[in-house]
């Protein structure tokens, strides 16, 4: 069905990452949120997952399936109820610092300009912000905010704030990048551009990336492997190898591997009832 040359290229890349040691490893991880007087929420249920060093891993799943929870567990911001999370061989039992994180909401400091918001990352780490100023400017330019460095968050649009948060996660060049729907508030065009830029950056630096998204296309276009999660309680439904050669560029959407992967994921969501084929007008039975 597919051109043999593409298939071998794809296998080669997968084989290369296969050899890398696991950088992030979740074994039998369950997360239950408990609050007094409330029903408990089982956000994640027996999740096993490894991310290899230098791998780009994407997670897709319906809203509320525990994607953000998983990311927080890896960052050590929440601790697993059962099971074990390891990063770089060490058990995660406290907040991890050797990483860059983009939260689902931008989480900027209102009292700092965009540039200063990027630099706060290095300031809080006790590094000299002056030494990072140029790099911060370059990153802002890369995310399309060259002229907005001196604006305060309330003077930026939602998408712009999100891009500042992306620059802030990159400034200190950490080996692990956790991104929770980083392109969420972006328009389709910026989204496409920033996706290309992120792939280029990843190709140049080979960071380990955990990338959460709602968009099946985005997951397939960016990731080496796509983790498909089922609705609550969040379980891993399937892990797909994306055999697309890199760099994927704008044409990747036309590649047969792209169609195959996105269709496979859509099938899963259809089977799980996350999607249903026939359209039903909202508000009617």
């Amino acid at each position: 069905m597919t051109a043999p040359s593409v298939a071998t290229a794809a296998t080669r890349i997968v084989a290369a990452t296969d050899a890398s040691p696991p950088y992030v490893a979740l074994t039998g991880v369950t997360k239950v949120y408990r609050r007094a007087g409330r029903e408990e929420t089982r956000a994640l249920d027996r999740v096993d997952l490894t991310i290899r060093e230098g791998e780009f891993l994407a997670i897709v799943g319906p809203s509320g399936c525990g994607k953000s929870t998983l990311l927080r567990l890896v960052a050590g911001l929440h601790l697993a109820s059962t099971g074990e999370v390891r990063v770089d061989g060490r058990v995660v039992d406290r907040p991890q610092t050797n990483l860059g994180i983009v939260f689902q909401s931008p989480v900027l400091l209102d009292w700092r300009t965009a540039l200063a918001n990027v630099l706060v990352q290095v300031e809080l780490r006790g590094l000299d912000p002056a030494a990072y100023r140029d790099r911060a400017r370059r990153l802002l330019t890369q995310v399309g905010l060259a002229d907005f460095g001196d604006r305060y968050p309330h003077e930026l649009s939602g998408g712009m704030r999100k891009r500042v948060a992306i620059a802030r996660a990159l400034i200190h060049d950490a080996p692990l990048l956790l991104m929770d729907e980083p392109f969420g508030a972006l328009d389709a065009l910026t989204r496409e551009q920033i996706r290309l830029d992120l792939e280029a950056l990843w190709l140049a630096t080979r960071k380990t990336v955990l990338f959460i998204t709602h968009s099946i296309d985005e997951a397939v276009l960016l990731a080496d492997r796509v983790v498909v999660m089922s609705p609550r309680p969040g379980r891993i439904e399937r892990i797909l190898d994306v055999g697309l050669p890199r760099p994927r560029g704008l044409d990747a959407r036309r590649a047969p591997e792209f169609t195959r992967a996105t269709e496979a994921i859509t099938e899963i969501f259809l089977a799980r009832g996350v999607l249903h084929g026939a359209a039903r007008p909202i508000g009617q039975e």
Partner: protein
Amino acid sequence: MPGEQGAARSFVAWVRTRGAALLIFVALFVVWEVAVRVTGIKEYLLPPPSTIWTEFWKRHDTVALGAWVTTQEILAGYALAVVVSVPLALAVAYSRFMEEAVYPVIVFLQIIPKIAIAPLFIIWFGFGFTPKLLLVFLLSFFPIVVSSIAGFKSADADIMDFARTTGASGWTLFRKIRLPQALPHIFTGLKVGAALAATAAVVAEFVASDRGLGYLLLQYNGQLDTPMVFATIVILSLIGLVVYYAVEVVERLAIPWHVSQQATAKDATL
């Protein structure tokens, strides 16, 4: 030169935004003046603005002296409130013991009508400066301490999560995140406290005093010298206004980002 031009421009801008309010004030005075003259109301009931002014000018040095006394009470009491309440708020926000032991007491004491305590202060501290200072302190203290505690505790959960991924230590975290985040709340308290300070000083002087604007007010009132009562009230209001705006100016300098954020929000709702 550019500075002067800037000042002129900002004055023009000020007049433009406050023009309507100024106009209403002027109109009010004119209507007042005319109405009193036309209806022939007795001067001790409602003196016209012109009489208030001439009477005031005759005795302006007495009023000025009283104003100076009251201003000192306001400033000293307010300063004491600021110096005590912000560190106390810090302690309550960051020490579990202080939170469990002191905070409930603060909340309880806040319910007491503070002005009712003024006579007690006279018994304890006599007729001098101290009881006035203490009453000003007491009235300004609560709004400042309560909103400062709220400010220091207001740390946004997501921002704190982000900070935790940087491994920032306590002091850096305080300086770069917690303090800036608390400042808008603190300034809210500082402004409420400033507004209460003048009231407190006058009330304390009402209870027992031989000087100050509150004392003068009672004197003039007893003599049915209504024009001077009005004049004293105006001066008192001006003092309160100046103190309040001084705090607002400091706020503008300290947290310009917050002030402009509010302005944007206001523009958006208009």
